[in-house]
């Protein structure tokens, strides 16, 4: 099990600062969910960890700075499911999942039978056999998402990053995808960091929430501490009600403006 910490981490793009001095420690096996309005810097945090964009400050994996590692080694530790993954036309599901083995294949080598067996095992465990031979270009949103998660699982990385894993899915597939991540987290002790828009789902599945606004972390804690009407009102500019179910589930419901 692997921990992930941020020490005053910032992400700058050419014309703006996306993340300003983010500090946090995600404990081994913990699920941290980043919430916040569009453009708050959630995706940038994930992209920095995935090595897709540069950063200042420190990102530490098990206490060692990420920048000290090669991109291959980093990919062995961190699997990244982007917001809108590219599924190349003409690639089968099995070939797509096999891409997850890239960090373990030597530069000019090809996958061993071990890699191929491992991929078919992942495909079996995630119940994707019927997608394995299909062109990924022809899959539905839910099928794509399961396949992308399968690729991340095949990567065998102890840290899993999910950028809006459910934004394109209906409620059934949202639940299916998040249940899958939750199951994998428990089975493999994965450390998960996700960015999510649906506050109720974020509260249900994660251990801890961090609310970002304009690149700053403005609130963090468990669902009950972060998902409060005043906090959400201030940073999302919305009017919401927050219900607390008998089992402790926090439900966020928007208020409709009164009819005049």
């Amino acid at each position, binding site marked *: 099990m692997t921990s992930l910490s941020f020490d005053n981490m910032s992400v700058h793009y*050419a014309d703006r600062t996306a993340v300003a001095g983010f500090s946090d420690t995600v404990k081994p096996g913990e699920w941290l969910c980043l919430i916040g309005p569009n453009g708050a810097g959630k995706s940038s945090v994930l992209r920095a960890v995935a090595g897709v964009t540069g950063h200042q400050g420190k990102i530490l994996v098990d206490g060692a700075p990420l920048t000290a590692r090669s991109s291959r080694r980093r990919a062995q530790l961190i699997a990244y499911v982007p917001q809108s993954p590219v599924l190349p036309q003409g690639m089968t599901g099995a070939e797509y999942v096999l891409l997850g083995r890239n960090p373990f294949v030597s530069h*000019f080598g090809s996958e061993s039978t071990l890699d191929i067996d491992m991929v078919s095992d992942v495909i079996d465990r995630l119940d994707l056999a019927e997608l*394995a031979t299909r062109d990924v270009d022809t899959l539905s949103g839910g099928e794509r998402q399961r396949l992308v998660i399968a690729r991340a699982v095949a990567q065998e990385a102890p840290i899993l990053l999910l950028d809006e894993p459910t934004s394109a899915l209906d409620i059934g597939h949202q639940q299916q995808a998040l249940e899958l991540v939750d199951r994998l987290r428990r089975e493999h002790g994965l450390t998960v960091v996700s960015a999510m828009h649906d506050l109720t789902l974020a509260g249900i599945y994660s251990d801890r929430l961090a609310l970002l606004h304009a690149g700053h972390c403005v609130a963090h804690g468990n669902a009950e501490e972060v998902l409060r009407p005043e906090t959400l009102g201030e940073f999302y500019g919305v009017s919401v009600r927050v219900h607390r179910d008998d089992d402790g589930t926090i439900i966020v419901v928007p208020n409709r403006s009164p009819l005049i």
Partner: protein
Amino acid sequence: MTSSGTTSRTAHGASRWWIPGSAVFLCAAVLGGVMIGPAGPEWWRVPLELLNRLPFIAIDSGMSEREWAIVWQIRAPRVALAAIVGAMLSIAGASYQGVFRNPLVDPYLLGVAAGAGLGATIVITVNRGGTSSWIIDPLPLAAFTGGLIAVFVTYVVGSSVKSDRSSISLVLAGVAVTSLTTAIQTFLLQRNSDVVRQVYSWILGRLSSATWSDVRLVIPYVLASCVVLLLHRRLLDVLRVGDEEAAALGVNVDRVRLVVVIAATLGTASVVAVSGLIGFVGIIVPHAIRLIVGSSYRMVMPLALTMGASFLIVADIPGRILDNPAETPIGVVTAFLGAPFFLLILRTRQAQR
């Protein structure tokens, strides 16, 4: 286990026979290439004589020494050069399409063709009297150098623009360098209109003057280039998910792109230097392969070598017999044969879906 079977089948090929099959086709094309021609021995004597030349085999093919010279000194180097040029342009085209993730890209994208054209124009202009008295023919050398310089300028300009989409700025830089180089070439030609015809015939591309020394000239570059490109076939598959995801999967995207571009450019510049600009091969062959066997680079790259070589050998045959002795330029034949062939594959493929 069911999915174990499906994984290995999809990853490595229900189409595993395509590579040996295409190699057999290439051998047939080579044989056809040395058998057919306007002058020389009757066609059926050629395979017999080839067998005769092998050690421990003696067959009387009834071929005269003069006829054998036609086969070995005129047709054979031409077939060999066609194979090398076709293979190189096809695999370079496939590689460029892979690293730029753009199906319309050809190996001339970053300015190789324009640079080589300018180099050739300069030599032809300066050295009107002909180059036969030189120890080294400066024409291919100038074309080769011109092509490499143009791509180098493109790369320096393109990668100096620091953006998230470096491949786009590289392509744009290629367009700019190509038009600048073409402008200089046009200016030179306008000042020296007496060489226009000579330059034009160089640009159209030809294999007709091929000799064994041309083959020897390009083979080291082409071999090195093809080996490097073939080694990158798996990485090209990883790049298909985009720069960002490939980087997240542990690929050093910029380095892979640079190495592939260098290798493809070196090979392309060397074949352009001896054969001129033979268009269409670098786009049509990789696409035909994708339409037939799918778009995995593990299949596309080796098949680009064999099918590209076969395609250019076959495309070179009508040119020699149709319009003898004033031959049709090979670039015209590739477009003339390639376009309908490509449309045919496209149509049958869509009908299957």
